[in-house]
């Protein structure tokens, strides 16, 4: 049976893992390779490497790091950060990434999603969506890696999700901005809404604070995977323990 995925995310800035709260005030969380290796060994189902300021700085993710991380881990590896053209994507895949995740560049140029899918296959193309719940609406935000440059777009989250699926995305990571780093649980309502909107895999992101939050997101939203950062970096939740907890509660999990 296909299992639910537990996905730690390395938000990277200036060669270090960092983490903010609601995409602001980033704090140092430690060494990139140490975290990457530890997560692979603890049973993570995938690793995301996200160069958070690449898009807002107008540059592309540091390829040296991709190679270093890809060498030491033996689980799927998804890379995000300022990937704006096919050449960059090709280089990052050649350096050992398995999937390319695009967020702000897809908003700048939606056709880029189609170009990526045509070049590498839809399975390779992840679209990250940063969504803020505001006055009863879900609104897509852009350049969220740098709080001074963050832009509110005119796009509705569910409409944008449907559109990227049409354009060729193979998976969506929904970052619920209100919940990010707050550790009060995933945005169940919003994740239910996106699950109804698209047929491709959906990864929940933002809000994990305790083991129950992962249980809730899998049982209540149909999410295919749950991404988290702070709780894993600080060792507040150990991935192997979390997976045992979920498996004991009849969630399909790889132990």
């Amino acid at each position, binding site marked *: 049976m296909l299992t639910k995925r537990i996905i730690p995310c390395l938000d990277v800035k200036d060669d270090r893992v960092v983490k903010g709260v609601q995409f602001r005030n980033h704090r140092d969380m430690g060494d990139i390779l140490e975290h990457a290796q530890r997560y692979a060994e603890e049973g993570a189902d995938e690793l995301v490497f996200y160069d958070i300021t690449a898009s807002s700085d107008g540059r592309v993710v540091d390829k040296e790091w991709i190679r270093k991380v890809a060498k030491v881990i033996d689980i799927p590896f998804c890379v995000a950060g300022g990937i704006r053209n096919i050449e960059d994507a090709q280089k990052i895949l*050649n350096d050992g990434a398995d999937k390319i995740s695009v967020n702000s560049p897809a908003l700048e140029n939606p056709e880029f999603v189609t170009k990526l899918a045509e070049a590498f296959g839809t399975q390779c193309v992840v679209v990250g969506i940063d969504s803020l719940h505001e006055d009863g609406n879900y609104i897509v935000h852009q350049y969220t890696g740098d709080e001074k440059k963050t832009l509110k777009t005119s796009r509705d989250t569910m409409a944008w999700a449907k559109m990227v699926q049409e354009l060729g995305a193979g998976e969506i990571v929904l970052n619920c901005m209100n919940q990010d780093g707050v550790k009060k649980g995933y945005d169940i309502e919003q994740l239910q809404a996106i699950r109804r909107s698209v047929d491709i895999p959906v990864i929940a992101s933002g809000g994990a604070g305790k083991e129950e939050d992962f249980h809730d997101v899998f049982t209540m939203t149909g999410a295919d995977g749950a991404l988290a950062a702070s709780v894993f970096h600080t060792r507040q939740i150990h991935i192997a323990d979390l997976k045992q907890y979920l498996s004991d509660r009849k969630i399909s999990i790889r132990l």
Partner: protein
Amino acid sequence: MIAVIDSCGSNITSVLFALQRLGADATLTSNPEVIKKAERVILPGVGAAGTAMERLKEQDLTHCITSLTQPVLGICVGMQLLFTHSEEGNANLLDIIPGKIRHFTPEKDKTIPHMGWNSITFGNKHPLVKDLPENSYFYFVHSYYPQVSQYTIGECSYGDTFSAIIARDNFMGCQFHPERSSKTGALILRNFLEMPA
């Protein structure tokens, strides 16, 4: 020396890194002479089977591959290429192993591609799956699958039941990505590296 055939675009680096972690001497190549002389050959691949087949033809590698007598391991689309035909782009393949590649049957609440970790049951004992426990998990990313046949060594289910591992004589293949399947994937690669050439 292990020849990793450089034909199908991306994701090849992951395969090379996985072989390096196992201490294997692997070379990325599209040179038929190098491939013929290699002790073992790996045919990786992502994307569409038809496109991958076109690239093999452009590089004049189809005859080279079909005539290999050393252990050969196809991975993902590289495995699909060993079969006769794919529904994806109605493509004729290498036809080393009789069989068809089909698209997953759409169903409610079934996301396609089949992406993530799924378990495999082993029917036939084969050196490639030595020491692997029943229901071991592997990482899959695909929308098309090889049908179950007499050449199936490991089966997986995702609505449709399909061949996750196949073998015929010296040709073997896995639909999942052993290079990204943690310790169980490493064991498959190690078994491949250790079987008599």
